[in-house]
């Protein structure tokens, strides 16, 4: 027996069947074949116990088909780690809305998205919202956008105004906290809170990404295991040096990749007491 698009199928006895032939029987017109999480050609033989996903290019895939496509892209072992990961994004501006998009696309297990503000016209030069979303809560506008990218996401919206004293209440159980605030005082407060009140939470903060300075001056610096800061650590947003989509996007994707590296244990996470 094997699983074809989540349905059990019994293989005819003593016949060798290719995935292409299986597709002709169960999903005519399918032209993307995934066996046990890996993309394969139509000539690949299937055997008992295989999990097969058959997809028609150009057709809107179901949740299961999307899941199989993601696993095939990432390889199954990697995808299962991403799928069980839980991250929090604090601040849904140029950094936060971009980080959220990257994490949604790779199929993160659970995402807490936090902001108490509404979409304003001045946000649209760098933040991933649309003109027709002006006036909406950023949490809800982003939720709509993220679910269009990946309908099977699990999202939790947090619309409180965060302070140093309530941060741990909301975020002490996440795997990785990604700080995307605008205000430097809240940035500092977040790092203090993570260091002193969230001993098991990895942290990816941000400092310095305004203007159009050199690409490669945006760095990811490890402060200590599990604690990382992204940015050039000097370019503040100020008159004459605004925040712009390209450089904010570089920093955001540094943050997203750092969060992914932490989820996949490619970089050291928190060490208790540090």
């Amino acid at each position, binding site marked *: 027996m094997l699983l074809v698009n989540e349905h059990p199928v019994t293989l005819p006895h003593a016949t060798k069947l290719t995935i292409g032939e299986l597709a002709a029987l169960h999903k005519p017109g399918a032209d993307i074949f995934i066996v046990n999480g890996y993309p394969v050609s139509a000539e690949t033989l299937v055997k008992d116990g295989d999990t097969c996903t058959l997809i028609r290019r150009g057709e809107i895939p179901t949740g299961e088909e999307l899941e199989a496509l993601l696993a095939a892209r990432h390889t199954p072992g990697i995808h299962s780690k991403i799928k069980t990961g839980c991250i929090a994004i604090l601040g849904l501006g140029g950094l936060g809305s971009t980080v959220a998009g990257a994490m949604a696309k790779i199929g993160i297990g659970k995402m807490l998205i936090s902001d108490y503000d509404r979409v304003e016209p001045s946000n649209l030069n760098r933040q991933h919202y649309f003109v027709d979303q002006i006036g909406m809560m950023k949490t809800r506008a982003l939720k709509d956008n993220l679910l269009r990218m990946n309908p099977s996401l699990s999202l939790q919206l947090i619309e409180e105004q965060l302070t140093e004293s309530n941060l741990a209440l909301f975020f002490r159980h996440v795997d990785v906290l990604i700080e995307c605030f605008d205000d430097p005082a809240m940035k500092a407060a977040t790092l203090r809170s993570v*260091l002193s009140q969230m001993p098991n939470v990895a942290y990816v903060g941000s400092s310095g990404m305004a203007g159009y300075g050199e690409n490669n001056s945006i760095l990811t610096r490890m402060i200590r295991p599990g604690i990382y800061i992204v940015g050039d650590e000097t370019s503040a947003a100020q008159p004459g040096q605004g925040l712009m989509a390209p450089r904010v996007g570089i920093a955001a994707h540094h943050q997203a990749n750092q969060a992914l590296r932490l989820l996949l244990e490619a970089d050291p996470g928190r060490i208790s007491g540090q």
Partner: protein
Amino acid sequence: MNITLNGTQKVFPSAHTLSQLLADLQLPPETIVVELNTLIIQPDCYSETTLSEGDTVEIIRFVGGG
């Protein structure tokens, strides 16, 4: 006063408290995280936290934008 600041030994002749050290360094106190001998110091304690010879201070500074 000899202090190891972010891994480098430095002399701060007039810094007896954390507040004075931050003033010497011209750092806005609300935008930084300060660790004194591996202990996180809350901002409202900067002025009453005294420094001693040989202390290790780590300062992480944040600038605005996100």
